């Protein structure tokens, strides 16, 4: 077993465990920390795939910015333990079997077509190539996202104002 495979399985296990913890823990703050764990291990998998810039962005933006926003809101609203309700009977009985079915079906389908997939053979991607592609071919979508971010900022400020 090669080192890469061992690292992959270790961090894949951590990611799946974190996702399970997100579901099973009842306090929202614990779920948020479990999600940070998932994002960190996915960042390691990006490094394993040779996507260094994406790994850095994953940690800085996702684990650093977005999750801090989540934790802020959890603390701001003083979100405590989830209360147990029995309002949805369908989720109670059909939820777990359907969830297992969906996951298993997706994994099985991918396993089925795996033989047809090419095996990857590319070195680490240089950030220079990535930025050349981003600022040449994808420059218009890039500019469009700046407008999107601006509108999101305005929307968030307007929505979160006291007198609405």
């Amino acid at each position, binding site marked *: 077993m*090669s080192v*890469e*495979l061992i690292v*992959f399985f270790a961090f*894949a296990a951590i990611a*799946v465990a974190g*996702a399970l913890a*997100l*579901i099973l823990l009842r306090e*929202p703050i614990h779920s*948020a920390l479990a*999600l940070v764990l*998932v994002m960190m291990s*996915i960042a390691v*998998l990006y490094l394993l*795939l040779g*996507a260094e*810039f*994406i790994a850095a962005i*994953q940690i800085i933006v*996702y684990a650093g910015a*977005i999750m801090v*926003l*989540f934790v802020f*809101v959890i603390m*701001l*609203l003083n*979100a405590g333990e*989830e*209360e147990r*309700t029995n*309002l949805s009977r369908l*989720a109670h009985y059909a*939820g777990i079997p359907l*969830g297992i079915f*969906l*996951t298993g079906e*997706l*994994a099985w*389908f*991918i396993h089925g077509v*795996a033989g047809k*997939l*090419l*095996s*990857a053979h590319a070195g680490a991607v240089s950030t220079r190539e*990535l930025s050349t*592609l*981003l600022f040449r*071919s*994808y420059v218009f*979508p890039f500019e469009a*996202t700046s407008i*999107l971010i601006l*509108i*999101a900022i305005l929307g*968030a*400020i307007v*929505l*979160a104002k006291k007198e609405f």
Partner: protein
Amino acid sequence: MVPISYYLVLSAILFGLGVVAFIFKRNIITIFMAIELMLNAVNLAFVAFSRMLGQLDGQVFVLFVIVVAAAEAAVGLAIVIQIARNQRTLNVERVDTLKF
């Protein structure tokens, strides 16, 4: 060398767990986190395919997905704050004003 299909299976498992969390959780903030988990799973598949095909377009798409996720989280959490203020609860099953 890790086969690409392993990454895709992991991505599918994480996406499935995200769907389960989205359906199961009752706290509206945790439901948002489930959406982020699903976006992460999709990003992993994007990067794996980008590696497999030797093209960088997948990684550029991941950057755009992260930007849209950030915008979505900002606006979504503002809406959550507004819901918590008006309804005095974070439980989605208690926010049923539109329910007939």
